């Protein structure tokens, strides 16, 4: 059995294979790479790097994409800091 490490993805702990890359993680989550930005320990990655960058114990990964928003996100108290996309 492959060794497992724990990382944080969008704030939540998650176990991944010790040899997994960012690209592997996105595939596991069924996320289309052309529509997301990925931050690995506060470093924004180029899409071309996803399959090269391997994950390490304790890494913090943020996966973001576009959601509805315009001038305002105030009415429902949304849009302050990192919140879950709806």
């Amino acid at each position, binding site marked *: 059995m492959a060794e497992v490490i724990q990382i944080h993805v969008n704030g939540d702990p998650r176990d991944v294979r010790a040899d997994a890359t960012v690209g592997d993680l996105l595939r596991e989550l069924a996320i289309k790479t052309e529509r997301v930005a990925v931050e690995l320990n506060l470093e924004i990655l180029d899409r071309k790097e996803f399959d090269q960058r391997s994950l390490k114990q304790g890494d913090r990964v943020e996966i973001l994409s576009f959601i509805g928003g315009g001038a305002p996100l105030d*009415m429902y108290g949304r849009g302050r800091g990192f919140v879950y996309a709806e």
Partner: protein
Amino acid sequence: MQNDPLTIAGRVFTSRLWVGTGKYKDFAETKKAIEASGADVVTVAVRRVNITDRSKENLLDYLDPKKYIILPNTAGCYNVEDALRYARLGRAAGVSDLIKLEVLGDERTLFPDTAGLIEAAKILVKEGFIVLPYTNDDPIVAQKLVDVGCPAVMPLAAPIGSGLGIRNPYNLKIIMEMIKVPIIVDAGVGTASDAAFAMELGADAVLMNTAIAGAKDPIAMAEAMKYAVYAGRLAYKAGRIPRKLYATASSPIEGML
């Protein structure tokens, strides 16, 4: 609007109504309203992907990035550092260097922190972004934003989502006269006449979200806004008559009995 394009930093925009994509009931309504508005620029926010429920649909399933210019914003950022982070994430998630820059100063009014805005704009321009800053109706701040390299300025008409309309037409007019880049009136529009008024003043475009999304019938309001912006633009180009205190007869006196 045919044959009346708006050019910013070498990019050509065919519509002078730009719309936000927040606050709609669902993506189907968002899509219909945007189609009815005729806008070719849509603003979006950048947020965490929901990784626990991947069945949820994505906004871009409904808005073809080939058909619309997707303009990411830094909504919800209250300091320079956050605004820079979201701007860079927006560029990484998308395909262009366009960013609608917001650095907010206060949660109740959502007024911009103009000092932070100028600082963030300066940094992002150096990083190659095309920075479209959401700012106050302050001509001096608008000029400073141009000085740091913003190719357009987006002053507010009233607080975001307030629907109060054009609160300070005189300041906006001064901005339009003083500032030599396109002016996009952003935020505060409540109904079609507000949008027409902004365009009659000489705005190059109007950006709105709540006035459409919050209307009882967003799709009908989107269409109303399309015509309002069109009418306001035509009236501006046609040149209105001066205001006079007393009447001027339209019919000649000559030939009367």
